[in-house]
C-alpha cells in the first residue's frame, strides 16, 4: 500500500463512498423485505445476496482485503471451506423423520 498523503486522502474519499453505499443497501434490504418475490424463500435469498454484497464491501475496502498479502488469503480460504462445511452439516437435519409427511399427525 502506498502511504503517501495523496493516496491516503483518496482512500478517505473511497471510504466515504463505500459508507454511503452500505447505508443505501441497508435501505434496499429493508425495502425488499416488504416486496413479495413469489415465495418467502426467494425473499430470504435476495436478502442474503444483498447482505453478502455489503459484507463484501466491508471486507474488501474497510478491511483492505482488496490488496492483502498471500498469507492472509490462505488463512481465509481455509476458513471459508470450514465454515461452508459447518453450515452444510446442519442441513443433515433435514433427514430427521420430523420432516417426513404426517410425522406429527
Amino acid at each position, binding site marked *: 500500500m502506498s*502511504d503517501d*498523503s495523496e493516496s*491516503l*486522502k483518496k*482512500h*478517505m474519499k473511497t*471510504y*466515504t463512498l*463505500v*459508507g454511503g453505499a*452500505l*447505508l443505501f443497501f*441497508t*435501505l434496499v*434490504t*429493508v425495502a425488499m*423485505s416488504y416486496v*413479495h418475490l*413469489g415465495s*418467502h424463500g426467494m*425473499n*430470504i435469498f435476495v*436478502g*442474503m445476496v*444483498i*447482505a453478502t454484497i*455489503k*459484507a463484501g464491501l*466491508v*471486507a474488501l475496502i*474497510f*478491511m483492505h482485503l482488496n490488496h492483502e*498479502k*498471500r*498469507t*492472509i488469503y490462505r*488463512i*481465509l480460504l*481455509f*476458513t471459508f471451506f*470450514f*465454515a461452508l462445511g*459447518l*453450515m452444510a*452439516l*446442519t*442441513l443433515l*437435519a*433435514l433427514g*430427521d423423520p*420430523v*420432516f417426513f409427511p404426517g*410425522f*406429527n399427525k
Partner: protein
Amino acid sequence: MQIPFEVKPRPDTGLWNAKIGIWLFLASEVMLFGGLFSGYVFLRLGAEAVPDYFWPQGELDVKWGAINTAVLILSSVFVVYAWVQLKLRNYAKYQFWMALVVLCALAFLGIKSVEYYGKFTHYSVRLKDESVVQGHKLNDLQKFGKVSKVTVNLEKADLSFLKYIPEEDRADLKFKPALDDEIQRQKNALEALRNEAAPTENTATREAEKLAKTISKGIPELESALAELERVAAQGAMILNSGSLGSVRDAINAGREVEHKVSMAKNALANVATRAANEKAKAEWVGNADPQKERFKANALQPVYAWDEAGGISSIEFAPSKPFGVEVKRSKLRKPGNERIVFRDFTALDGELAEESRYLVVEELDKVDLRSFEDPTQAKVFQYIAEHASSHHGEGEKGGAAPEGSAHHLTSAEIQEEFLKHSAEETEKAEHHGYEPEPRKTHVMALEHVPLRVPWEEVKFYSNFAPKLNTYYAIYFSLTGLHGLHVLIGASVLAWFLFFGKKLYDKDPEHMANRVEVGGLFWHFVDLVWIFLFPLLYLL
C-alpha cells in the same frame, strides 16, 4: 529486548505480527459465529416441522434494527477515517474520529438495551386452545391467604416462602410442628399397653405374669421416647420463627429430630407389642388342650402395632400461630392451586387463593394471534378479552350513570368482528396483489390496549419475551448477546486507544497506527456480523 516485526513486516510473509494475529483470530470468530448462524438455520428449518409453532418473522421493531445498522456502518467509516488521520500524523483529528466511533458503539449498546428491556417487559400468553395474545403489564401475583398448614420437605427445604409473607402478617408469626395428634396417638397406645400389663383376675397363670413383666419392662423405654417427642414438639415453636432465613438449617435439623423421635417411639411400641403378642400366643398354646399350629402362627405374627420404617418421614407439618398469607409470582411456584400451593423447595401451603388471583390479567394487550385456527371464530380468547372490560366497568359505575363518551371498552363480539374484518381485508389485499395470503397477516391482529382476564385453568403457557419463550428468542438472544459482547469489548479497546494512545504515538506513530488498524479490523468484523444478523432476525 525489542520484539521483532511489531512495525516492520516480516520479509517472508510481508506481514507484521499483530496483523497475522488478528486475521487468525477473526478466522476463529468466523467459525464461532458460523456455528451460531448454523444453529439459527437448524432451528428455523425445524420450526417448519412443528405444528402450531410459527417462526415469529417480523416481530422485532425494524426501526431500531435499521438505526443500529446505520450506526455500526457509520462507526466503521469513522474508524478507517481515524486510521488515515494517524497515518497522516494528525493526532487531534484521529482523536476526533475515534471519539465518534466510541460514541456510535455506546449508541448501539444503548439502543440494544432499550430493545432488550422492551422484550423483557412484553408478555406472550398461550391459551389451552392455542390462541395467543401478547401485551404489557401482566399480573401473575398469587395472593394466597388463610394459610393453616405448612408442609416442609426436610430434604429440599430452603423455606423461601417466608420472604413472600407480607409485613403485616409477619409480626408474632410462629410455627409449631403439628405433632399433637401424633403425641396423643402414642399416649393412647402406651395406655393400652399399660392396661394389658395390669393384673386382673385371670393373671393367676404363670404365662400371664410373664406377659405383664415383658410389657412392663418396655414401658420406661417408651415413656422416655414419648417425653423426648413432647419436648421437641414444645420447642418447635422456635424452629420456624418467621423472618429468620438463617435458621433454616436448624429448622430442618430439628424437624429431623422430631421425625426420628416419632419413629423411635413407634418402634419401641411395636417392639414391645410384638413381644407381648408372642407371650400371649405362647400362653394360649400352653393353656389349650388341642393347640392349632395355624392359630399360634396367626396370633404370634400379628403384633398390635406395625413396625414403623425409621427415616421414612421426608416432610413435617407445621401449624402457624395465626393464619397468614403469601404474595408470590406464579412463576416462582412449583405447583399453583386454589387450596394448596407448592413452592420450588417442595414446601406446601394449605389455604385459600384470593378470588382475584384465580385469573391471569394482562392490562394492555397489543396483539392477538390465531394462526392455529382454521376458523378464528372458534377461538375462546375473545370472551376473556371482553369479560374483564364489561364486568369491571359495570361495577365501578354503580350508583351513577356513566358519563357519556367515557372510555369505551370494546366488547367481545366487537373485537371478534373486528378480527374477522381484518382477516378478510388482508386476504383480499393478498389476492389483489396476486400472492398467497400469509397467516401472519390474516390471522394476526393488533389490539389497542384492551385488557385480558382469563382463568388460570385456560392458560397453557405464559412468558415474557425472554429466551425461554421459544427457539427464535433463544437464538435471538444468543446471537445478539454474543454480538453485543463483541461491540462492548471492541469499543473498550478502541476507547483505550483513544484515551491512552498518545504515549505510544509520540514514541512510534507507525506502531500506534498499526494498533488502530488491528482494532479497526476487529471492529469491521463486528459490523460485518451485524450486516447478516439484521435481515435474518428483523426482516426475513
